[in-house]
């Protein structure tokens, strides 16, 4: 297979479709976004694809960029800690990542090939070096380091990503600069699976010396750790050994941890931070847009709220009851009240995955709001007076609590009385979700960047491969989900995925998807080099093109 292989084809096709959609969205959402899309770099895959945020002069060297950060990083080991991956991505090396326009942006790898369905071959940069810190002291990064890191990553504790390691057959260092990954079976999601920021490259001797890298992150990324104080700050300085000559531009980065969202936003507005760390909704964004010194970038938010029901027993084993739920949920009300109008309906795959998602027209037709119809179906299912159901969920602030409260109220309107029980996150995870001890539960799904994982929640084996926590199983659907994993032809895979989603819509559950909005980034105009057209939530985590346009 020639180098312009599946990945490049995939990248080009999806890029053009996304650009078109983004341009349309930008036109609808105001001038700033339009300017941002208009200035994008637009470079084909195989190299860093800088797309400066706004037209600006020559990049300037120096300065320290300050990020507001709401999460307290517990540790900085990418194979063990997942709470601060965006911070870690600035320090670690990766083979590649999926950047602007869904293109593969090469990092430590210079090129990648896909010679057959199960083999992935990476040629590494020669003379790429680790950071100049003990115990590696800037030694060369080799394919053996990649093999060791992928092996360590594959045996990590974090279960969410053990899904992909279960597919891996062999990890091999072919020679010093060639790394080969072989899968047990054709697995199309590999392109994205390997690109998430847990697949960092780390030196074995550092792991052996420190036990883990939680306090001592060492790799070959653009920045290296200067100071890490939990609950306070992560300071980084420029890595003089970084293998992209002349990068990064900045002398360092500083992440300042403030757990309170309002305080985080106030700190940004008073210019204590250069890049906002607070969660922004449409209302806050409208306020921020009034300040011309602030740039706002919006992308589809891949987090998506879901309602789960247990389909193995009454009342939810009756499809009429599940259909009644779909008819009782007013998704437009969720969009208007929770997202202030700036959101779209989600099918089984969130709308942000434009290529793989069902169109809004199709979803609107499928998800009609019909409380009368819902009551009629409940009566047919022998629940003329409705019923009471306990909904246990985490007492997480923000959208989480707001959406579940609204949905509970909507179900109550047709006679499904919801006894809403809010618990702390640990209690909910341990005693409800992970043990499948619920009749109904609600949560916000993680921002999966590939359609395979969202579909896995409908597979009879579930996301972990141990069975579906909702007891749901449908052989026809399983076959479609399995088939899309094996398909490297984009169009064929798209057909399978759309077909699977249409089947899910007819099945009404076990996971009811609602709506989600946009992910907003705000930074002061003097911050340059943000990749604005990166549709994936984490694409800018790897960005080493930032610079500060101020004296």
């Amino acid at each position, binding site marked *: 297979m020639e180098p312009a292989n599946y990945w490049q084809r995939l990248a080009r096709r999806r890029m053009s479709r996304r650009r078109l959609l983004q341009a349309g969205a930008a036109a609808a959402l105001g001038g700033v976004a339009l300017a941002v899309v208009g200035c994008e770099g637009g470079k084909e895959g195989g190299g860093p694809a800088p797309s400066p945020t706004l037209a600006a002069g020559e990049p300037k060297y120096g300065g320290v960029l300050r990020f507001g950060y709401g999460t307290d990083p517990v540790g900085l080991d990418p194979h063990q800690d997942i709470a601060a991956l965006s911070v870690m991505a600035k320090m670690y090396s990766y083979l590649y990542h999926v950047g602007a326009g869904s293109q593969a942006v090469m990092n430590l790898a210079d090129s990648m090939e896909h010679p057959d369905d199960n083999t992935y071959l990476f040629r590494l940069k020669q003379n790429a070096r680790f950071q100049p810190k003990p115990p590696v002291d800037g030694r060369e990064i080799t394919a053996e380091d990649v093999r060791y890191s992928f092996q360590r990553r594959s045996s990590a504790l974090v279960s969410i990503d053990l899904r992909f390691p279960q597919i891996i057959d062999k990890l091999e260092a072919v020679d010093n600069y060639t790394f080969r990954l072989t899968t047990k079976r054709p697995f199309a999601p590999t392109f994205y699976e390997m690109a998430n920021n847990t697949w960092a490259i780390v030196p074995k001797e550092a792991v052996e010396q420190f036990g883990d890298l939680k306090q001592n992150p060492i790799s070959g990324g653009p920045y290296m750790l200067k100071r890490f104080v939990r609950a306070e700050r992560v300071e980084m300085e420029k890595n003089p050994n970084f293998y992209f000559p002349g990068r990064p531009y900045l002398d360092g980065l500083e992440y300042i941890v*403030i*757990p309170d969202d309002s305080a985080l936003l106030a700190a940004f507005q008073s210019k204590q931070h250069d890049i906002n760390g607070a969660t922004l909704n449409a209302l806050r964004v409208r306020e921020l847009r009034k300040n011309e010194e602030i740039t706002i970038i919006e992308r589809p938010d891949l987090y998506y709220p879901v309602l789960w029901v247990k389909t193995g027993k009454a009342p939810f084993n009756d499809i009429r009851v599940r259909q009644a739920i779909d008819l009782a949920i007013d998704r437009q009300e969720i969009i208007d009240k929770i997202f202030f109008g700036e959101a779209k309906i989600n099918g089984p795959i969130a709308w942000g995955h434009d290529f793989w998602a069902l169109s809004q027209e199709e979803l609107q037709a499928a998800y009609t709001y019909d409380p009368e119809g819902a009551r009629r179906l409940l009566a047919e299912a022998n629940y003329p007076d409705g019923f009471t159901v306990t909904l246990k969920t985490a007492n997480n602030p923000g959208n989480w609590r707001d959406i579940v409260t609204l949905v509970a109220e909507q179900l109550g309107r047709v006679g499904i009385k919801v006894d809403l029980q809010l618990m702390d996150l640990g209690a909910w995870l341990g005693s409800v979700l992970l043990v499948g001890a619920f009749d109904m539960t609600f949560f916000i799904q993680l921002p999966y960047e590939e359609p395979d994982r969202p579909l896995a929640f409908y597979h009879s084996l579930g996301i*972990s491969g141990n069975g579906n926590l909702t007891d749901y199983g449908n052989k026809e659907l399983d076959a479609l989900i399995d088939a899309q994993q094996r398909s490297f032809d984009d169009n064929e895979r798209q057909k399978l995925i759309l077909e699977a989603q249409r089947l899910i819509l007819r099945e009404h559950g076990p996971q009811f998807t609602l709506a989600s909005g946009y992910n907003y980034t705000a930074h002061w105009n003097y911050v340059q080099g943000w990749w604005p057209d990166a549709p994936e939530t984490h694409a800018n985590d790897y960005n080493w093109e930032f610079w500060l346009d101020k004296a």
Partner: protein
Amino acid sequence: MGNYILRRLLLLVPILFGISVATFVLFRAIPGDVAVIICGQTGSPECLERVRDQLGLNRPLLVQYTDWVGGIFRGDFGASMLSHVSLASELRHRFPVTLELLIMTNIIALALAIPAGVISAMRPNTPLDLVVRFLSVLGLSIPNFFLGTLLILLPLIWFDWTPPLGGYKPFFEDPWTNLQQFIFPSLALGTAIAAGLMRLTRSSLLEVMRNDYIRTAWSKGLRERTVVTRHALKNAMIPVVTVLGLYIGGLMGGTVILEMIFGLPGLGRLALESILLRDYPIVQGLVLISATVFVLVNLAVDVVYAWFDPRIRYA
């Protein structure tokens, strides 16, 4: 007095034993453990098993308890199951933050409460007294998290400025930034305490002022200032000190929310985050330390009584 203090210190042993058992058992009775936090919302049974095995959570509770207590006797309070950082190291970093917050809160509370209480008591039922009493009710009524948020947002709206949030600077490294970082949360925390203490100072002083020895002091022709400061105030302070001691214990909890809002890396925040993450060793250690501090503060209060009122003797 020495014997009394020694006896009280010895009492710490059964108290701490009881607290250690209660914390250990109760915290494990809460649904969910650190394994579910590590494995996350898509955690598989294998992941949970593996994490529990690795962290020793599958061992019998008695073994885990004796391990933990044995460590304490060796001076090892354990380490976070998530970050692997020892509690001792966390304390070194975070205790000064909470201590500074407590000290500044108390300074602000006392500086506001005592003069206001004295003025109010010396001029009862005058417009001045009414104003002070109105302010004290207001201070008691405003929740500290609300006041804290106002102290951030109002300067932002008025002056495009907020006090430095997050990025804690130790006093000896950058005193000016440090004071800006602490004065606002201390004000938010101290206002309610000041209001309570002011009312207590006022009522206590009013009562003392009716005593015979005060009448004697007046009849000797002493100035008002001398009567109040040398004779009345010292005696009026006994209930104030008692309540202040209790407040300091309560403040350990009150600091949590202010530390969150102002981004200060203190002990309150560590405790809250560790509870939510089910980080057993950290929570257990912190509860033990808080209990010890609470007992010691109350002992100190008892000792201070004797200083305020030499008639009080401990046998």
